Every structure is written in C-alpha cells, then in structure tokens.
C-alpha cells in the first residue's frame, strides 16, 4: 500500500499521509459544507486571511459564501468544553479571490486545529506535527517559529499604534532594517525602541541557539511568558532528529489581527513560498466560543505537484496486450495488482503511456513483448 501511495502525485499523496499522521495523534476528521451563510464570514472578517469571499444568492434569496476558510467553521462548530481539548483535522478546498489576478481560486488545504485547553504539551504537539507534516513533503525543510509578544511589547512601550504600527510591522516582515531605521528617526521614535525593533527583526536561527539573544528582549510579563513558552517548545522538541530544522525568526508576523501568540511558517526546499502557516488564535476562540485557547496550522498543497513532480519514469508497471478476452486474463491482471503492480489491459500499446513491462496475453499465458 505504501508503495502505491508513494507512486501518487504529491498533491494526492500528502492528504493521505497527513490524514494518517493527524489521526495517529488523536485528531478527528472535520468535514464542512461547501456553502455557509455569508453573514458568518462577514461578521468575522477580521479573522479571515482574505478579503475575497465568493458570495452568491441561494434559491431562497439568502446570501451564501463559498467556503473561504475552514478554521472559522471549526471554531464555531466545535462542541468541546473550553477546559478540555478538541482536536480536528481537515482535508478541504477553500475558495477565494486571488489577490494578484482577481480570479476565483480553489486552494487545497490540509490542517489541524486544537481548541480548548492549549497547554504546553498541546503547544509542543502542534509544533511537532508541523515538523512532521513538512517532513512528509521534503526531508529538506524548515519550520519557523515566532511570537508576536516581543514586537507588540516594544510597540506598546513606545505608544506606537494604528498606521505607525502597521508601517513598522511591514518593515520587520520584509527584514527591511535600513528603511525602518530612517522612518523611525524621522518620526521621532526613541533610540532604545529603534534598537529593540532592529534586534527583533534580526533574530533568526536555530531555536536553541537564539534563545540567549531572545532572553535579552524580555522586558515584561508578556515577553517573559512568551520566552518561557518558546523555551518549553525547545526542550520538548530537542530530542527529535529534526530539532535542527526548528528555527526562530521574529520577523514572521503574519496576519496579526488573527494570531495572538506563537506563529508558525513552514518552508520546503523546492517551493518558493511557505507551504505551512498557522499560529495561536485565542481572540477568535474567545469571540465565538467565549473562552479557551486555539492553535492550528494549514498545509497548502497547491503547486506542490509542480515543485515536487512525480519522478517515476513510467506511467504504469505493466501493460497487458490482448486480442480476445477470457476469464483468465482478468485473473492474471489481478494477480499482478495484488503483487503491488499498476496494470493496464489494452488491445494495443496506448500512445504516450510509458510502461516498464509490456506483456502479451495469448492462449491463457503471458509472454514478454520486446519493445
């Protein structure tokens, strides 16, 4: 079975392997309807990672949305009490308006959400599953971890909010220290805060190695708790072989209206953009469920067939050519399939199909055909 799964294109293989991984860690599959009431998404627009919701009227005239997001639906429908843990995984398509082309886009996603009591063990579990998910795509991967407390605290201490906050976050996200320094000076930001922001934007490296530098950025209870959280993750993951691939980079600051603590971003070598994104989103959980934490991530499967093409030289293992059908023919094909081979039955060799073996079925027996 594993051989067959390995032979599948990446975008078909991954949902199977990731589903198995998430099930093994006790996550339940969550299936959602393609359509939900538009009002639900528009009420929670701040928490959506996109503005482009595809909406339409149903036969009763109600405005519906083609699902732009899965997390919102999971948070709304999870039935567990806030002090317990609810674990869900999904394997769904979402529909959004593409930012660049403004066309409707179908995006394949697999992911997990853990709701309720997100304690230190649950946090480390999600990070571990993030690492393991990336490993399923490529052994050469990096999971970047970040925490918004450090930048939030620096900006709060300086009383920077609104447009100024947005501007500084933009500089940090782009690792654009030169413009940030100039802009901060022009806008009269205190030198100590500028130094702090520069340090935040430059901290990057293996989690364990950068912890001492991170400790220097602990200035209050919030940053102290964030440091302890990251230190806890470091200790929990240290024993795993892919520990080196867990890196800290505080310039990862995606979607800050949504995430409230740890942020995750995953990269694999052949994909030019991140393939995993997630984080802690307690404010959404609080708004919809009233209490409890929430932590999850999504793996983006789109484009992975392009960056990780199926390298198999052949489209199938065996083509059996036959003139006349009889019951033994299907039996012979079935035996090969049971032995793990991909088999095609054809009258003649189909155009464009590459087979590692071509057999001819004559009078109840199979003979090799020379190419």
């Amino acid at each position, binding site marked *: 079975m594993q051989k067959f799964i390995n032979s599948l294109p990446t975008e078909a293989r991954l949902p199977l392997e990731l589903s198995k991984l998430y099930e093994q860690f006790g996550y339940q599959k969550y299936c959602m309807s393609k359509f939900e009431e538009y009002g639900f998404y528009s009420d929670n627009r701040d928490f959506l990672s996109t503005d482009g919701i595809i909406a339409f009227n149903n036969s009763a005239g109600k405005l519906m949305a083609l699902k732009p997001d899965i997390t919102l639906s999971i948070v709304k429908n999870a039935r567990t009490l806030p002090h317990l843990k609810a674990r869900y995984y999904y394997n769904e398509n979402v529909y959004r308006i593409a930012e660049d082309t403004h066309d409707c886009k179908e995006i394949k996603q697999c992911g997990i959400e853990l709701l309720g009591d997100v304690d230190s063990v649950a946090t480390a579990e999600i990070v571990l599953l993030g690492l393991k998910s990336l490993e399923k795509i490529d052994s050469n991967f*990096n999971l970047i971890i970040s925490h918004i407390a450090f930048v939030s605290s620096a900006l709060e201490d300086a009383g920077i909010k609104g447009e100024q906050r947005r501007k500084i976050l933009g500089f940090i996200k782009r*690792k654009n220290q*030169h413009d940030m320094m100039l802009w901060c000076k022009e806008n009269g930001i205190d030198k100590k805060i500028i130094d702090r922001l520069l340090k935040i934007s430059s901290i*990057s490296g293996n989690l364990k190695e950068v912890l001492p530098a991170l400790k220097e950025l602990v200035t209050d209870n919030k940053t102290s708790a964030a440091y302890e959280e990251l230190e806890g993750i470091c200790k929990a993951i240290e024993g795993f072989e892919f520990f080196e691939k867990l890196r800290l980079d505080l310039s990862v600051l995606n979607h800050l209206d949504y995430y409230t603590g740890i942020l995750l971003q995953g*990269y*694999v070598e052949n*994909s*030019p*953009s*991140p393939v995993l994104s997630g984080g802690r989103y307690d404010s959404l959980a609080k708004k919809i469920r009233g209490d409890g934490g929430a932590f999850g991530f999504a793996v983006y499967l789109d484009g992975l067939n392009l960056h990780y093409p199926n390298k198999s030289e052949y489209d199938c293992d065996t083509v059996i050519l036959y003139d006349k059908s009889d019951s033994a023919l299907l039996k012979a094909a079935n035996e090969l399939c049971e032995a793990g081979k991909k088999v095609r039955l054809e009258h003649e060799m189909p155009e464009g199909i590459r087979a590692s073996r071509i057999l001819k079925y004559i009078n109840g027996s199979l003979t090799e055909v020379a190419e």
Partner: protein
Amino acid sequence: MITVALPKGRLGDKVYNLFASIGYDCSEIYDDNRKLVFENPENGVRYLLVKPSDVAVYVYHGAADIGIAGKDILDECGLSLYELLDLKLGKCHMCVAAQNDYKEDPSRPIRVATKFPNIAKKHYMSFNREIEIIKLNGSIEIAPLVGLSDVIVDIVETGTTLKENNLKVFEKFLPISARLIANRTSYTFHKDEIDSLCSRLQKALEEK
C-alpha cells in the same frame, strides 16, 4: 551555488562590479555575447541578466535566490520578499510632476499618467484624493503636454527631461534606490551565506 538576478543595463553593471569585488566574480560576463546566464562554480555564483522590472518576479518565484531591484519596482509589484540591504545606487525620487503653470482643480478627480499605478493610487489614497489612473509604459512626460493627464507620477533623477518638456516637480514622495532582495525560502535555507554576502556588500559600500 547562489543565483543572483541582475538588472540589465548601467545599474546591473555597477552592481555586478560590487559583487565581483567581494568575491562573486564571473569574468565570462564581460564577454561580448548575447548570453543571459553566467556561472562561476568556483565562486559558487550564477547570474541571470533580466529586465529590471522582472528582477522581483524571478526572485519571488525562486528562479533566483537574491536580486537587485529598485524600490520603485518593489513597491509597485508588492510581492512578498525580503529587502535586506539598501545599496544606495541609482538614487532618485518618485515625484508628482505637471506643466509649470498647473493648478489643481479640487472639484474633480486628478488624471494621473504613470508607469506605477499602484504607487500612485497608494500615494493619493493616503490623503483621500480621488484620481483617475492612465497607465502608460514610457514617455510619460508627454501626457500632460497633450492633455492626456493633469499630472504624472514618475521617477525623477536630475529633472532634465521634465525641464526640457516644460514640466516641474510638484511633490517628491518616495526616495528610491537599488535594494538587495531575497526569496523567503532561499533566505531560510541559505541564511548564513546570504547574511555573509550582505555584510560584505555593506562593508564594500562603506569603503567606497
């Protein structure tokens, strides 16, 4: 091996010399031919010579690990990239220019001719001024002269072209220079090499 997208032209030549001075030499690049890809495995570098406005696209899609692009191109395309260093080369400004006697009519939208519609929109949106964009690909200065637009939004280096066409700068709003950019994935996997390249470039620029 690090792949660098270099802008073709004068800026590219300056940048290449800078890279060569810190050990990323690729002498083949001086050969008189039409090749667009040059490689020096010994120095671990490959150069792609591309149109300046395409550098960010090559880097964004991972065809190049790093590249050199003007701030104007970066702000216009808005792609998610790291902007690691200001090379302080090719310095100029994004400006609003119009005919010498231009007077804004506040009762109607301003017609803006530009190669940079996103930058122009963002600029006018910052003070809620309604505009109408006329996207052009070159010779922008003609637009106000023939009544196609009220103003232009374009990069101005010396202002000579404006002067010769009876135009003047009414507003300077975005300082522009060449930036070293990096693909996010490439930076993640080649951080040490890119960081070291960056600090050597910075040192070379300071010594200049």
